[in-house]
């Protein structure tokens, strides 16, 4: 087991996907949304996802990670923008704009192959 929290997240995700997939359906794609605060490493999660789903109906399913950026607000000039990192300077010279990020970690949707008879 990998000593990273992405492994626990992958395990939680696999359980949540199984709970929401129709019985017997093969899972093709899994979409999640992750807030900037979580500081998630997509590469680590993808690796853990492959490991956790090996030998399950989710094996090989593509994991789409919608990683939200930080919202940055300049307290001097009021400019607002998004950034992959929280601590950035503003064009106006302000070295300490205010970062805000959400802590969401949600399973948005799954795409499955359903067998029709």
């Amino acid at each position: 087991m990998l000593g990273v929290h992405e492994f626990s997240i992958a395990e939680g995700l696999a359980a949540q996907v199984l709970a929401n997939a129709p019985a017997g359906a093969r899972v093709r794609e899994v979409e999640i949304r992750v807030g900037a605060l979580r500081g998630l490493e997509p590469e680590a999660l993808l690796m853990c996802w492959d490991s956790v789903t090996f030998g399950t109906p989710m094996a090989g399913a593509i994991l789409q990670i919608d990683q939200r950026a930080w919202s940055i607000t300049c307290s001097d000039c009021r400019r607002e923008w998004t950034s992959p990192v929280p601590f950035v300077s503003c064009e106006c010279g302000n070295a300490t704009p205010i970062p805000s990020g959400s802590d969401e970690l949600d399973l948005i949707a799954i795409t499955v192959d359903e067998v029709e008879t």
Partner: protein
Amino acid sequence: MSEQTRTVRLPVMRRVLEANDDIAAATRAELALRGIFAIDLMGAPGSGKTALLEATLRALAGRRRPAVLVGDLATRRDGDRLARWCDRVVQISTGDGCHLEAMQVRDALAQLDLDGVDLLFVENVGNLICPVGFDLGQTAKVGLFSLTEGDDKAAKHPYFVAEADLLLLNKIDLAPHLSFDRAGFEADVRLLNPSVPILDISATTGEGLDAWLTWLTDR
């Protein structure tokens, strides 16, 4: 009739860690019912989590009825240290797990007699990243930094800072020997968490511990 497959996209919209969150919510309700204030104590390895708890348990002796859950990777050393000051200590061995999860806390609590307990400390695994995203059912998250880690650790761990209900800055007795930019540290904290109290303490000398004990007793 021949079998055909069709590919469908099914919207879900549920939390990934829902199973953990459900257990944490049940723990929180149980602790509230018992009137137990529960702290998830998080901090880096060597920041002084166990030393802080030792000093805190010593100071609270006879005044509060605390219990302690202590997460430790591989040893019983932290639990043994704390058992000198508290008769209700449960060690949670995490193996190579980098954080505690709600199920481990629930199972450890089941090993404790909680009658009369009014305060619960959960010492998380030494780590500034992994523990933050896992709800344990705590009442408050306390983040412990120390001067020896350097003044950039708040900026480097935004989730840790943003989620904290209280931040403690330990080892202030070492300030004369270190170039720690205290104002810069606090400025980084304020950008991420404008209202969190920051208390300067030394678990070793006892400096600043009164403010921490007051914060505890005001809960």
